[in-house]
């Protein structure tokens, strides 16, 4: 979306003009052409990220690269700042009164905390799936999926087609295609969460953040979501916060361990779970504390 991306998952060597994010979005929205998913995705890089709630320093100088088209899992004990860190990536953190963030978050080459960047455009480019499935209760199934497009005032696109695409991508189409006008809240928990994922991908983001997306689901629904995550990473860069280490081991290409707001270790998942380098990671993944 931002420029033809480089073949390698490394960061683009061609800097993108700064305000290009909102502009390309509008242009694309206006043309209404369905976007062809490009194999080369988008990188997110944190550079010395600090986050605060009033006086509480909850994320401390995190520098971390999320590789394009990979799933990165964030693990760590409760209160280690992993959710806050992820909420900084699409600037949802600042919605909490008294919360602020410092440092840089780069989407490809663009600093999303830059002065001329529109926060609304950032959130369209970096979607988020929450812990509890939260379909809009006043809307139907298709209304929920189209909500993102309607809410962001996108015009001139074929909503019906977009809804179907998104529901198919979320693996929900076959289950709901005959009752698109029924309320979204009538679905089961796992279906609701997939509906929320469909809602997120309907706006065609570049990165998807997931904050413990399976913690409210039963094991089978969890496995379906995990399968879906594996599908989605072909088109999106995915960051998933999880308390379930088995889940991190199953879905993530690389895993980052956080403790007390600091990034302790970030390595390929297989390494984190067989031979972590830091003793604190070892202690955490083997369940010696936490």
């Amino acid at each position, binding site marked *: 979306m931002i420029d033809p991306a480089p073949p390698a998952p490394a960061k683009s060597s061609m800097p993108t003009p700064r305000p290009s994010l909102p502009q390309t979005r509008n242009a694309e929205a206006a043309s209404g052409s369905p976007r062809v998913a490009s194999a080369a995705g988008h990188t997110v890089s944190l550079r010395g990220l600090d986050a605060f709630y009033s006086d509480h320093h909850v994320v401390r100088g995190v520098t971390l690269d999320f590789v394009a088209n990979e799933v990165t899992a964030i693990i760590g004990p409760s209160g280690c700042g992993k959710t806050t860190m992820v909420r900084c990536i699409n600037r949802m953190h600042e919605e909490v009164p008294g919360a602020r963030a410092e440092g840089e978050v780069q989407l490809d080459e663009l600093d999303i905390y830059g002065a001329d960047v529109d926060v*609304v455009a950032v*959130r369209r480019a970096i979607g988020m799936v929450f812990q509890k499935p939260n379909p*809009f*209760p*006043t809307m139907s199934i298709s209304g929920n999926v189209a909500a993102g497009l309607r809410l*962001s005032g996108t015009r001139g696109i074929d909503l019906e087609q977009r809804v179907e695409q998104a529901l198919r991508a979320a693996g929900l189409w076959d289950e709901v295609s005959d009752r698109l006008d029924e309320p979204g809240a009538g679905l089961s928990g796992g279906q609701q969460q997939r509906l929320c994922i469909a809602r997120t991908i309907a706006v065609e983001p570049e990165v998807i953040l997931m904050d413990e997306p399976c913690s409210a689901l039963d094991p089978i629904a969890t496995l379906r979501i995990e399968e879906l995550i594996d599908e989605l990473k072909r088109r999106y860069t995915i960051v998933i916060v999880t308390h379930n280490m088995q889940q991190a081991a199953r879905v993530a290409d690389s895993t980052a361990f956080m403790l007390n707001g600091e990034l302790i270790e970030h390595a390929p998942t297989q390494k984190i779970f067989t031979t972590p380098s830091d003793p604190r990671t070892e202690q955490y993944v083997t369940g010696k504390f936490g």
Partner: protein
Amino acid sequence: MTSLSPISNRRRRTNRLAKALLAGGTALALVPLAAIVYYLVSKGVGALSLHFFTSDPSGRFFGDAGGVRSAILGTIEIVGLATAIAVPFGIGVALYLVEYGKQRRFANAVRYFIDVMTGVPSIVFGLFIYIVLILTGEFGGFAGWKGSAALALLMMPIVTRSAEVVLNLVPAGLREAALALGAPRWRVIARIVLPTALPGLVTGSLLAIARGAGETTPLLFTATIVKATTFDLSSQMNSLPAQIFDDVRKAQNKLVDRAWGAALTLVVMILLLTLLARMISRRSRLA
């Protein structure tokens, strides 16, 4: 042999006594309510007729005293205008408090004043409008819209209070989900928060309307009591509470009977509004 022992007789007696006390208290509280309904119906029904609803008070001492048409229509007009003012403003203030003000000092000050306003006697609003809009003479004399203004002042804190509660019930997760989809805040409010809270907002507003419709004193100071039906809000205007107030002071039985009829009419109107509010809130998804 289990250690569970059967209920002792003493526990049984205490339990029965407590139940009886509570039931008795409830019955006692229902006595005045039943009495009011009984008197209203028994005394009011006799006054009701087609003529009662379709004619204005004649003001003649002898012969036909006329009905309460002007009072019913006046009440509807005055309360309608008051609603048109109080509901949008009230919900607007609530939206500010919930969505923007949150726990800021200014928002908390606003909340405090709204609480105070809820407790202010209605006569104070009447006097306030009387002093500001009528005694100054700048805006003419008594008028229906001034009654509406007084009622709106009375209703607004009620609307705001109930709306704030309902808006706070809208799950924060929904706002977050909408914001995370890249929606500007005003669209989140218009498309997500308000529709989700709608049934509750309607209920709160209807209760405020019912309260406003029953008020007498603010209207006595602002719209006064007249006889003729009017649709001009800038002229003096009759209303049901004011009409009742006027009639019961008269030394004529037929006028007192008319007051009973008017009171029954008013109560039925408010009852219908409350029922409507109930029905809507039952459909609420935020229960």
